[in-house]
């Protein structure tokens, strides 16, 4: 250990000898790594499993029960209200919830200025299925209509200035609701429950409204929806439940392989019954996609993030070459010292330990630089791509990966130059 501290001291002295070329090397490496980190953050968050251990038990059922004749077409992403009712009649799933996203304006009293609010219209099992933590209160007692809302923590703070607001009332689009629950800090990343939204980095909704209430009060979906007739579905309360408006995404929890098999059978039987009744003109095509495959199934992996990933990787390679070139110049100008050390008895392994000390210092400096530049990069990407404008903290896995990336890059930058320096001619260097 004492010897390694000595190597670190020697490395620091070597930096002091020519600080500018060293700073430039670290800067180039930091820029390459920082840009790479920024993109890796998005990529990681988009591709991580938001519910490890459960995401393979939550399924997204889709069916072609619609007044639509087609061959070889995939079922739509959303279900109609009546389809959901038919699927919900099954008691195979451990939990099930239909939902869609909408928007409204909230305030405490009618004379206050309204606050825009993202609304998720859903059912009570939503909270259990997606492990949503409640800070205060409870969820709805059943799936019937209630003038009751559940607030996100941030919305409770925004409206009331505190979180303990169960029992308080608020006005949502000119109608009074009572608050029955407040969520704890919660952000599902990626937000895969919103399979129709195609925007898995969006923040959690502000207000949760019962599904039946949403239909009763004409809250239309503001994301994916599809209709198969000419009905005016703006009158959701009167037409929405019976017509062919497909705006509901539906999730079921199937804990065992037997449940999954039974549920597929149930969907098949339902589709056959509907076909027999003339309500399923297209060939039967049911899908039951687990949450951990939903992005691949819909092909929702954003192309821009992927393209960025490739570009930043290439940029990192270019930065590595440049940093390595600068490091080579630095090492060659220090070659005399390498030769002297070898003449005085250091073997190549000991010189490589010296190199590892150099790598360690470069890793520390370039990692710090890269984290700063990475953070700036993420902020810039949030500004340029507002649809992805959510950046949560770097978790331990990501930080560890970033440290490893910095370590490997520092090693690559230092490896060739130090080998060149340690294999130089001893005699020639000491004469110069």
């Amino acid at each position, binding site marked *: 250990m*004492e*010897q390694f501290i*000595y190597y670190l001291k020697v490395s620091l*002295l070597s930096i*002091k*000898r020519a600080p500018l070329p060293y700073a430039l090397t670290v800067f180039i490496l930091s820029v390459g790594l920082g840009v790479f980190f920024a993109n890796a953050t998005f990529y990681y968050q988009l591709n991580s499993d938001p519910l490890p251990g459960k995401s393979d038990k939550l399924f997204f059922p889709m069916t072609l029960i619609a007044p639509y004749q087609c061959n070889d077409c995939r079922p739509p992403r959303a279900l109609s209200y009546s389809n959901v009712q038919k699927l919900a009649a099954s008691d195979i799933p451990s939990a099930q919830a239909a939902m869609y996203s909408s928007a409204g304006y909230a305030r405490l009293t009618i004379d206050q200025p309204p606050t825009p609010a993202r609304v998720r219209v859903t059912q009570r099992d939503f909270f259990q299925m997606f492990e949503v933590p409640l800070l205060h209160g409870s969820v709805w007692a059943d799936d019937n209509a209630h003038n009751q809302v559940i607030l996100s923590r941030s919305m409770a703070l925004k409206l009331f200035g505190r979180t303990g607001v169960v029992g308080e009332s608020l006005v949502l689009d000119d109608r009074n609701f009572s608050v029955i629950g407040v969520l704890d800090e919660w952000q599902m990343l990626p937000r895969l429950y919103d399979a129709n939204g195609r925007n898995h980095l969006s923040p959690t909704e502000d207000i949760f409204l019962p599904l039946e209430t949403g239909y009763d009060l004409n809250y239309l979906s503001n994301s994916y929806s599809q209709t198969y007739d000419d009905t005016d579905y703006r009158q959701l309360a009167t037409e929405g439940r019976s017509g062919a408006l497909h705006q509901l995404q539906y999730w079921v929890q199937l804990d065992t392989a037997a449940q999954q098999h039974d549920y597929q059978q149930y969907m098949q039987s339902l589709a056959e019954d509907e076909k027999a009744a003339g309500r399923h003109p297209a060939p039967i095509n049911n899908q039951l996609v687990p949450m951990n495959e939903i992005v691949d199934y819909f092909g929702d992996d954003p192309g821009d993030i992927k393209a960025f990933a490739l570009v930043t990787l290439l940029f990192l390679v270019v930065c590595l070459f440049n940093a390595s070139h600068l490091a080579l110049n630095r090492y060659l100008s220090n070659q*005399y*010292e390498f030769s*002297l*050390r*070898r*003449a*005085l*008895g*250091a*073997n*190549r*392994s*000991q010189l490589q330990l010296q190199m590892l000390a150099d790598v360690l210092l470069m890793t520390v400096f370039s990692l710090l630089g890269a984290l700063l530049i990475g953070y700036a990069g993420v902020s810039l990407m949030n500004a340029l791509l507002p649809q992805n404008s959510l950046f949560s903290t770097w978790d331990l896995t990501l930080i560890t990966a970033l440290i490893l990336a910095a370590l490997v890059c520092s090693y690559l930058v230092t490896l060739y130059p130090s080998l060149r320096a340690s294999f130089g001619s*001893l*005699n020639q260097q*000491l*004469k110069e």
Partner: protein
Amino acid sequence: MITLTNLSKIFRTELIETHALRDVNLQINEGEFAALTGPSGSGKSTLLNILGTLESFDSGDYLLDGKSVKGLSDAALSQLRNEKIGFIFQSFNLIKDFSIYDNIELPLRYRGLKAAERKQRIEQALELVGLHARRDYLPAQLSGGQQQRVAIARAIAGRPRILLADEPTGNLDSLMARQVMELLEQINQQGCTILMVTHDPDQARRAGRNIQIIDGQLHDSTMYEPLATQSA
């Protein structure tokens, strides 16, 4: 102690081959103080570098303490350099941003000696060269003669059996050169074998033996009277 048998060294470029040393046969005994002399480019430094295992040779053999150094690994050669050989260079070769103490410590570090033993050896070496009070100085704060004495301290701190000096007084004025020579003689009297490349005939005469090299060949190996007898 050192035996060279038909040792040859050729420097090759794409166009020419230069025979730096041709069939050199040499025996140096323990405790000798030998000067290597000869015109510039005659192969003195090449021979010294081969003896110090800083350079390889093409044919012949080099036995150190009866063992051939031919084919030794990098680690074995480094260990040999570290434990048995001390180097004194014409241009001192001190690391400019290391203190005197740290410069002398350099070869001891690679031997894996404990800090206490390193300290003891460094202080002994500094006492011998008379620079104990300047242990924390940087090389640039010392005169040329003092820097060469630091280089000598570095060379002897590891208690080597052979000291190889390549024109150790080449960059010094006559007064400082004399001091350095006296120091080398003192070290030799303590039993250390010294081989010194020099252009100075007076210094060559002060060594016990003069080995002359011309065009890569050993021409003469003059034995002088021992220094002690001369002064008597």
